[in-house]
């Protein structure tokens, strides 16, 4: 160990991987519906795609978790994205490709991908 900078680098590198264990204070939440209907419609590849994107982009403050049936089974796989201080946005009929856009446009840049939302589908 030669400098505080080196120590800080290790800290930053590891912090992202232990952040999950701290008390939650903000950060974007991604919730994937993983009930039978969701899984049958392909929720798992969607969940994995989210993890992949978050990992690729080093998004330390994003949590990806699952929930049960969100209720509109015909529109599964469904995903809810909540950015801190903003309304929850529900995306429907998600695929791995759609995930990339949601992460890039919504989670990173704050622009909701309106065409994928439940409002657009109805």
């Amino acid at each position, binding site marked *: *160990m*030669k*400098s*505080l900078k080196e*120590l800080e680098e*290790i*800290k930053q*590198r*590891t*912090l*992202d*991987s*232990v952040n*999950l*264990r701290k*008390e*939650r204070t903000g950060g974007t939440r991604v*919730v*994937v519906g*993983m*009930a039978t209907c969701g*899984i049958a419609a392909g929720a798992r590849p969607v*969940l*994995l795609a989210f*993890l992949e994107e*978050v*990992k690729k982009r*080093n998004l*330390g403050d994003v*949590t*990806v*978790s*699952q*929930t*049960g049936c969100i209720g509109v089974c015909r529109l599964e796989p469904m995903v809810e994205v909540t950015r801190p201080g903003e309304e929850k946005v529900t995306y429907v009929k998600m695929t791995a490709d759609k995930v990339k856009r949601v992460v890039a446009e919504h989670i990173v840049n704050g622009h909701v991908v309106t065409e994928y939302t439940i409002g657009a589908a109805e």
Partner: protein
Amino acid sequence: MEFFRSHVLICGGTGCHSSGSADVMETFKAELAKNNLENEVKLVQTGCFGLCAVGPVVIVYPEGAFYSRVSVEDVSRIVSEHLLKGRIVTDLLYHDSIHEDEAIKSLNEVDFYKKQKRLALRNCGVIDPENIDEYIAFDGYKALGKVLLEMTPEETIDIIKASGLRGRGGAGFPTGVKWEFTAKAEGDKKYVCCNADEGDPGAFMDRSVLEGDPHSVLEAMAIAGYAIGADQGYIYVRAEYPIAVKRLTIAIGQAREAGLLGKNIFGTDFSFDLELRLGAGAFVCGEETALMASIEGRRGEPRPRPPFPAVKGLFGKPTLLNNVETYANIPQIILNGPEWFQTIGTEKSKGTKVFALGGKINNTGLVEVPMGTTLREIIYEIGGGIPNGKEFKAAQTGGPSGGCIPARHLDTPIDYDSLTKIGSMMGSGGLIVMDEDNCMVDIARFFLDFTVDESCGKCPPCRIGTKRMLEILDRITKGQGKEGDIEKLEELGKNIKASALCGLGQTAPNPVLSTIQYFRDEYEAHIRDKKCPAGICQALLQITIQAELCRGCGLCVKACPVDAISGERKSAHTIDQSKCIKCGACMEKCPFKAIVKG
């Protein structure tokens, strides 16, 4: 960066380890693999969460779901329900960790944690103790860097002095002053030592720090080395703590590899290295001069002080010796400043204290509270009270060197000075709770038995004096006590306190003296009435059958292992007292509760 959507933290402290956490960990590994979740869910073995009573404990993040008493059979449910489908398995959660609407409480809202303030234990149960990077992620080794690069040794000592930190090993000597003495002592070579020879029955605070956060101790020892001018340190740890020894060994290896121990740390000309020394199980080696003798390879016996270790310690050189918990506080104080530390605790006792809760208490485990918290808060609010609705009788603090605190002092704020004032002591932090079923004479006898066993034998007051006291107590518990025994115990106790060579001998009579002070009536009942009010001392008990309740069913006759019970069928039975061994087997079998002990 590896991104895991969920972290499963499994307690790997000795408490949970002995209730099977290693098997739970293995099963999790297998179940995650079976469900192809290895790359999504991270398994972490941590140190102690504190609630040993409900181990093995498993916490799942990001939800913060607190699973308790997790068995190998429960694992597949947690994996398939919670980790795969996202449905928390509520019936396996710790009972106090969910709201009425089944929402999960944050850990700070759980009664057990609400009143706690975790400084020394801050990383226990949060980080993987076998991964130095996780320690660094929580500001580890930053204090060492700050001290080496920005401060002089004198400034470092000033911070510790200003914080008001006192030794957590028991005596409560101001830590900064000790550092200053050692720094000012003349010597071409100096040493830093850590006392991890935690020998009090019922105490496991230091073990948990070493198991859960070993790097905090290493970092603090390096800081101390810089402050006093030492380049070598020793950690004296009990061989009976295999997990702590293993994690310390790993931690020292990782710190050396990262250049945080060894030559030219942080590019400065400061070099410091550490070695482990394992104790061989002698209680007296927790005494500082005996500990150093043992490190040197000599017989672990204390020697008179002065000279104090700060002047003439290990290998005859000035030596700084602090306890594990004291060290665990140091990095925080450096990072947050002495003013921050000053705001916690009472006027003369700053900071927090870790207690190992044991005995007749619901939440057996490890707690850390600000100094000045009352015994009542610790026992009833954090500890969850006494099992089976029994009445609190006394709390024993300070192990074989401490004393018993009776119910009327439950509201005493706990700090060094108030405990000494009521005849006990802070000690290292063992806190054993006793209820109405504990006999205080028997408790005193238990602790004295321990001291007699562990006395090194070097000085007569301890070697002979405690033995004589034990003989008297033995007689009293066997119903052979005489008038004047109590006075003799008091006189012996006072003389041993005044004349024994080391701290252990000087405090050995404390359990006896404090129980006499607060529970003299129990001693008198044993001596005068030949009765044990709590029903513990076997020799003073008689098991009898109440004739009016006995229906003569004969179940007790079959239960008795020594054939002491006789009687006609369907008429009252009797116990032959000369044969009875008072095992109580008949009492358990009697369907009419006709057999009583008293």
